[in-house]
């Protein structure tokens, strides 16, 4: 086992990996940019080093600086988390060159899966089911036209180096193809520095289901069951669950076996995820492989009882998998909500700023992986993921009930979050019935926001008055709400922040 691990990430995932290190008796090293000095991962780590400016290219994406920091502090391994450098083969290679173990697959596996067209070719060779389409980049409009005609409209254009919906276009008919191809190529070029796009049969309102695998460095590969990730907005996952409401034992075994074959074909080691598209007849097609820990790994942890980060670290230190496929036991149901700093009432615009009040849920069946704390200012430079709230239950219904309960207990003041969106999703009859596809969320959002009909305006009015009385009371350091003027930094005036009367007032 390693003695010291550097975590090349920030936010909730850095905290999550630091916790795993501590649980294993391994020292943890945080790195941070200019705006992250006060972030939770710096508070929680055993060591912490500054690596550059707020802009990620000058800090969390700075390979040289990170590898150098690891070398100088004596870290034997680097955990990349997700995002940032986690799927960067150059980074994995730079670690190896510096004699530092990269906690993840080999650079070759990352490279293979990083190119969607190359991955398609390799997987085709290994006999993995693929969505019909090209396994090489589109060379010309004419070629695209011909392929589209062969596989039949609608078709999907996708960036070979893609991700996050960038360079992706749904094409319903021949006349849409040309402009779509051009804009997809241009967008892919802008986003990834690589304008290659390829063409697939479009599956309309598919389910997005993925399979978690673990592979050690001794050739053992197992699958840990699937996750249903169909709830997406702009091709970004919002809520994930395990198991999928439509996957039974037989289908799980089939998908799991395919996932193991994918990993084996890719010479894969460590934790990885094989994404599948599933059509209405439960046919599943290989979509891509994510060569890292996923944001949504906790739902798999809850239904299997395993700790994926512990296992990642053990695998990287060349331990063998401590169990065989038939020992893995799936029990119960888990659902994850991604809590973002964004405003669901205003086009999901990001909402960085200072967290002035934080009430966090806990209790039975609730896991909270968070990177925030009261008093912390959410920086505007990074992904707005603040925390993940995961509910577990003996069955899906209980998991939903517990999450609804916990979401009602959750309060983040000072910034906007999407907590209210999850209350809507989890209360939705279709969601509760397990009727999910990738179009679900757009349809939900297109419906009118239900007016808060709980009729508590009277209570709100009385509360507003009581706060005003308390503010104006002698011996109170709080200023009256009547005299407050908005300050320029998006937060309450500083006199307000200093207020702290907490005694009972009855």
């Amino acid at each position, binding site marked *: 086992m390693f003695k010291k691990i550097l975590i090349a990430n920030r936010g909730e995932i850095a905290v999550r990996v630091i916790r795993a290190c501590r649980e294993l008796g391994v020292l943890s090293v945080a790195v941070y940019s200019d705006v992250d000095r006060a972030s939770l991962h710096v508070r929680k780590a055993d060591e912490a080093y500054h690596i550059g400016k707020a802009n990620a290219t000058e800090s969390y994406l700075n390979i040289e600086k990170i590898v150098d920091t690891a070398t100088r502090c004596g870290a034997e391994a680097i955990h990349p988390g997700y995002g940032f450098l986690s799927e960067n083969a150059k980074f994995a290679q730079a670690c190896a060159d510096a004699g530092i173990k990269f906690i993840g697959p080999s650079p070759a596996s990352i490279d293979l899966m990083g190119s969607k067209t190359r991955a398609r070719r390799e997987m085709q060779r290994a006999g993995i089911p693929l969505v019909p389409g090209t396994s090489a980049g589109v060379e010309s409009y004419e070629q695209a036209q011909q392929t589209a005609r062969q596989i039949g409209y609608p078709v999907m254009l996708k960036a070979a180096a893609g991700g996050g919906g960038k360079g992706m276009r749904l094409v319903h008919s021949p006349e849409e193809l040309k402009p779509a191809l051009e804009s997809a190529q241009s967008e892919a070029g802008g986003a990834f520095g690589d304008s290659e796009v390829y063409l697939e049969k479009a599956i309309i309102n598919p389910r997005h289901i993925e399979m978690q695998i673990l592979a050690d460095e001794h050739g053992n590969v197992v699958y840990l069951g699937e996750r249903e990730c169909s709830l997406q907005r702009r091709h970004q996952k919002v809520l994930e669950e395990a198991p999928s409401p439509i996957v039974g034992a037989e289908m799980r075994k089939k998908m799991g076996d395919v996932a193991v074959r994918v990993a084996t074909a890719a010479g894969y080691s460590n934790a990885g995820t094989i994404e599948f598209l599933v059509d209405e007849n439960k046919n599943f097609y290989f979509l891509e492989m994510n060569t890292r820990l996923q944001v949504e790994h906790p739902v798999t942890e809850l239904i299997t009882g395993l700790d994926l980060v512990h296992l990642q670290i053990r695998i990287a230190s060349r331990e063998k998998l401590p169990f065989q496929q038939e020992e893995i036991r799936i029990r119960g149901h888990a659902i994850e909500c991604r809590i973002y*700093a*964004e*405003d669901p009432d*205003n*086009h*999901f*615009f*990001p909402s*960085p*700023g200072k967290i*002035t*009040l934080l009430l966090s849920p806990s209790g039975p069946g609730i896991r909270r992986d968070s990177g925030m704390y009261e008093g912390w200012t959410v920086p*505007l*430079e*990074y*992904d*707005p993921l603040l925390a993940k709230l995961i509910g577990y239950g003996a069955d899906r219904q209980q998991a939903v009930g517990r999450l609804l309960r916990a979401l*009602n207990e959750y*309060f983040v*003041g*000072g910034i906007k979050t999407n*907590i*209210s969106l999850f209350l809507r999703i989890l209360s939705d009859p279709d969601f509760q019935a397990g009727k999910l596809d990738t179009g679900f969320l757009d349809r939900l959002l297109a419906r009118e926001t239900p007016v*808060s009909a*709980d009729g*508590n*305006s*009277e*209570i*709100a*009015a*009385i*509360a*507003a*008055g*009581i*706060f*005003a*009385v*308390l503010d*104006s009371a002698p011996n109170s350091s709080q200023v*009256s*709400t*009547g*005299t*407050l*003027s*908005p*300050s*320029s*930094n*998006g*937060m*309450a005036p500083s006199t*307000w922040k200093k207020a702290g*009367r*907490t005694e*009972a*007032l*009855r």
Partner: protein
Amino acid sequence: MNYEVRIDDKLFHLELDRSEGQWHCKLNGTAINIDAVLTRTNVLSILLEGKAYEIKRELTINGLHLWVGSSHYSAEVRDPRSLRHRKDGTAGNKGPQMLTAAMPGKVVRVLLQEGAQVEAGQGILVVEAMKMQNEIKSPKAGRIQKIMVATSDAVNAGDLVAIVE
């Protein structure tokens, strides 16, 4: 104490007094028997005829917000005696409109110039934060009187960025 309280678009007249640790409350003239405890800063527990409410208070540049359980209410409190009150957040569509940044970020594009005519809903400039772009749009048809920022400028939430007349 007398207050005028606006909750979303409803107006209430509220009389509140505290004596011997008891609150005396009249809402729109009707006496209401409440029991209130501030459990921690900005978190109030109110009991009203047995019903329990947890109320959170939030103060942002967009004004005072109250959360009763998970339900959100925007609020405004006026103390008629002192005549002090919060300025209105939105003053209708008449007269010059002040456009402010809804979030802190960086100006990545200015789409129109001073003096240009705009339609209601037309974008004037684009602010980026957390990898997301936010187009600041004109609330009404008119003419851009002034643009206060340029490309690459950093803005804070609430900063005045343009005026449409």
